């Protein structure tokens, strides 16, 4: 199977605030792994640390067997990690097409047309709107654009931070279907969600984060049935 990502004992601080207190987990090739937890648990911070926007004081992060804990963020993308951040953070003033071009910033030129076609295949809505200013897209379309943008760099590991945030239930279903399709097509996925039910239903494995620590882990099914998770995250 092979491990794609190994996070070992990371500690992350915002000034004096100790946000991540010794988290370890791993993601294997072909899996969907999800991190669930309440507001402020440290899920986004963990993803930011993997993608290099934040640094851990301790431990190590290995991607495809080499350490990336000291690699600058802009170099991590070309190694094969794509991060769709919380709140999407598409380039609002650019067109859909320009956003996708930005996603291909480090992609080999001969792969770009191919990847663009793949993205439009996954998100036909985007193809109809190539010249539209991204800031004028609906929330669901913006999420699709953020995901499409991340796919433009041929990621081996796609990290999604709350892709369902603020979307109507029908769109949430759609986004999760796309996530599963991408996974079937070979992309390994690390998914952060507050919508624990959805996340656990698609995940191979899951970790529960509480105030900077991992408190539970197991397969998606196991966690969905565990009492603690049901009580805390699935509404009974």
């Amino acid at each position, binding site marked *: 199977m092979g491990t794609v990502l190994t996070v070992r004992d990371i500690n992350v601080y915002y000034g004096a605030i100790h946000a991540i207190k010794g988290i370890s987990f791993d993601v294997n090739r072909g899996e969907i792994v999800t991190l669930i937890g309440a507001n402020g648990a440290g899920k986004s911070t963990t993803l930011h640390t993997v*993608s*290099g*926007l934040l640094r851990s004081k301790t431990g190590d992060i290995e991607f495809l067997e080499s350490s990336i804990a000291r690699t*600058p*963020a*802009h*170099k991590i*993308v*070309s190694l094969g990690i*794509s*991060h769709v*951040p919380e*709140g999407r*953070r*598409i*380039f*609002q*003033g*650019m067109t859909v097409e*320009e956003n996708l*071009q*930005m*996603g291909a*910033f*480090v992609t080999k030129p001969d792969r770009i047309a191919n990847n663009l076609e793949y993205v439009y295949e996954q998100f036909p809505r985007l193809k109809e709107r190539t010249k539209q200013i991204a800031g004028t897209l609906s929330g669901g379309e913006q999420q699709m654009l953020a995901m499409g*943008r*991340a796919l433009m*760099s041929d990621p081996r590991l796609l990290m999604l931070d709350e892709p369902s945030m603020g979307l109507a239930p029908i769109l949430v279903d759609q986004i999760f279907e796309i996530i599963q399709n991408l996974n079937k097509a070979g992309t390994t996925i690390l998914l952060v969600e507050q919508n624990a039910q959805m996340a656990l239903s698609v995940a191979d494995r899951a970790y529960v984060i509480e105030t900077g620590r991992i408190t539970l882990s197991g397969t998606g099914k196991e966690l969905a049935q565990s009492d603690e998770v049901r009580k805390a995250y699935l509404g009974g």
Partner: protein
Amino acid sequence: MIFLSNLINGLSLGSVYAIIALGYSMVYGISKMLNFAHGDVIMVGAYISFCGTAYLGLPAWLALILAIVVCTALGMVIEGLAYRPLRGTGSLAVLITAIGVSYFLQNAALIIWGSAPKVFSSLFEGFGSSISLFDGELTVTWEAIFTLIAAILVMIGMTLFTSRTKAGKAMRAVSEDNGAAQLMGINVNTTISMTFAIGSALAAVAGVLLCSSYPALMPTTGAMPGIKAFTAAVFGGIGSIPGAMLGGILIGVIEILGRAYISSELSDAIVFGVLIIVLLVKPTGLLGKKMTEKV
């Protein structure tokens, strides 16, 4: 005719402001800092060009290129040495540093070139002094014409750069969301450095154009145009290329017309008065778009 002549002078001065404002605006857009030293880079550019022609005997165009090269390097050095180490710290520290860099450049110029004004010889000397129209009722200087043309070319060039080239789009991406840009694989440090380089190259051009029209060159020559250009950038909508252009031209025209028809002492006050009114009515400036702040 006098009005027309004033208007042309206003357009020409405004074109200089516009070129400076463009640099100010781009640098602000990408690093979210007010580079108060930007005006002083203009002054350095003018001195380098002056030295090129007066001491090295270079033709004016070559002296201009020398000034552009030196200022480009200067901009990158300032960014790398003074501002980059402070990135991520509070904006107050950066602001104070920028003021410090500004004084440093002025004082360095004072030591090197002294306080007595140098008489700058116009870049367009070779063209003769001016052209006369309407049986001599209206004279237009070559400086005014070329300054206006230069501003238009700069605007077209920068628009194409930011909309068509990969580096230009990276600049827009970093300006809009630094963190997201890094997640695309864009090297933010390189991109910011490039922006300072471009802004400073434009400042050199502006310095030479300014001193071609107003030939008294002193260590403080860049200070006031720097502030006016900053005003122009805010006036037009900071971060917007056409905004910087429009703001610059309008500030130049208001300043010259204000000086001619209202009061020469109050012309600067009029400029800032108009700025305040515009910002009260439209806080983002004339062409500024509302940008949501992202962390």
